């Protein structure tokens, strides 16, 4: 199994709305805590180490780090 990067969500707009909604009323630290737990839950669902590694790299690849 490879990391799916093509559109795979059943209901993209519903998911996005729910993602924002779940943070409603939380302070930034609480939101960070929620995000961390969400990542762990989803990672466990995926399970496969190769897919998870690809996801980590894909996410990191979109972050611009300053050059020194």
């Amino acid at each position: 199994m490879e990391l799916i990067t093509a559109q795979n969500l059943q209901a993209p707009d519903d998911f996005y709305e729910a993602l924002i909604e779940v943070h409603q009323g939380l302070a930034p630290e609480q939101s960070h805590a929620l995000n961390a737990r969400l990542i762990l839950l989803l990672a466990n669902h995926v399970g496969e180490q190769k897919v998870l590694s690809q996801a980590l790299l894909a996410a990191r690849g979109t972050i611009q780090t300053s050059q020194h």
Partner: protein
Amino acid sequence: MGHSDSLALARQATDYQKLEFEYRRSADQDAPDPVMRPVVVIGAGPVGLALAVDLAQRAVPVVLVDNDNTLSTGSRAICFAKRTLEIFDRLGCGDRMVEKGVSWSVGRVFFRDEQLFRFDLQPEAGYHRPAFINLQQYYVEGFLADRARELPAIDMRWKNQVTGIERLADFVRLTINTPEGDYLLDARYVAACDGARSAARQLLGHETKGRIFRDRFLIADIRIKEEMPAERWFWFDPAFHPNQSVLLHRQPDGVWRIDFQLGWDADPNEEKRPEKIIARVKALLAHSTMGESEFELEWASVYTFGCLRMDSFRHGRVLFAGDAAHGVSPFGARGANSGIQDAENLAWKLAAVLKGHAPEEILSTYAAEREYAADENILNSTRSTDFITPKSEVSRLFRDAVLELAKTYAFARALVNSGRLSLPATLCESPLNTPDTEAFAGVMVPGAAAADAPLLRHDGKASWLLAELGAEFTLLIAAPVAQDFLEQKSALTLPEGVALKLVCVTRAKPLTADELGDEQGLLMRRYDLSPGSAYLFRPDQHVCARWRNPDAKSVAAALRHALALD
């Protein structure tokens, strides 16, 4: 009362913490020229003592030098793992260790005031030894020293401090300082087992490299009348010691080991004050069912640690073992346990070289195998430390997320890392292994340390697989053995002087005189044996080859390969 009983009683009375060994002048000190010895072991800690006993049992004369004349000060390493106990069995002192030690296999992990989960390191029965015993290091050293004194091949020299090491072409020349001055001693091989601050390592200009962790821990041993279960208890962020971790273990003699994380900013001198320690212990007790139980502070120490190792454990004729070669955090009990495994890996190889059974190059496989094991220990230890002491805000965020989820969701408990407890490394990349050519299920791959299993002897007595393995090589074979293998057996040509013991196991009854019974079928399952299947074990009880139906030629070839002869 028999002689052995009274001896046992006399031993019971020994206070190993106060025991002092006598310095005795050796004839080597009066020799006109330096005397040549086959092996000199530096350091009479658990690793050096185990190595000396193992070599002596293999009929290799050993000189064991130590700069001091007492055993370990304080309890120090207290958790001895099943594999280590199995090695102690082979060294003739396993029973004493287990009788005195507190056997345990269950751990509990708490987050704040809530138990997250309980784990069992040995959920299946059918092993001679428990997952772990807790035993003060001075007992372990004391029992090993008692065993060493029974072996005339060991020449123990206390208050003999190595102050010089010169590596020459065919031997090593040591300068040794004693209360009566210096003398020179030559050795064909030197094993440096002289601990984390190894003088031998420094004298040769080597160092250990790796990560030093910016955190401090307090160890407190307390003597208390309260009984606690023989379990390992670990708290993340408990109310009695907020924002830090605490580890609790039971030791023999009514002593508890408590390990408090203090953080990098703690002042070690301040933290060592008894009043300060007593207050910390009282806070722990007040949060338990023990309330205001009385206790005495027995020993305390504030420590830091690193995960590091030498680049190479072999420098010609000088071999490094134990803390001299590598260091880990205490979480996982991977220090002393891996050191004892270093010793057992080195002992049979040194003996094989000195007896002419193996080329000197086999000593490089000691280094390769134990460097691999050290890397595994360092990896596990580093991961535990990073979980227990998060190094960044985001690391802390995920750590706490794991702990919170673990309250509700079982999957998150697998991520909780309070120490991954010592297991022997599977030396799957060892050059001494003969790769599989047939399929086997399970974990007993070439390179694995033998798993034990109960066996029944022909005379009706219960035994264990590990007790039946030979001092040198062993071929374990499942009955019925093919007739042509039995016919070839006599033609099995081994290198001169090398012994191969045959252990034939069966589920059939009745047993013949040269068979062992696997009544419960545990051996067959753990090794995935079918009729005619065979495993070849090295002298250190690691699997080095296996077959479904071997011919004598393959067995002889695998044995030669395990001696680095081909």
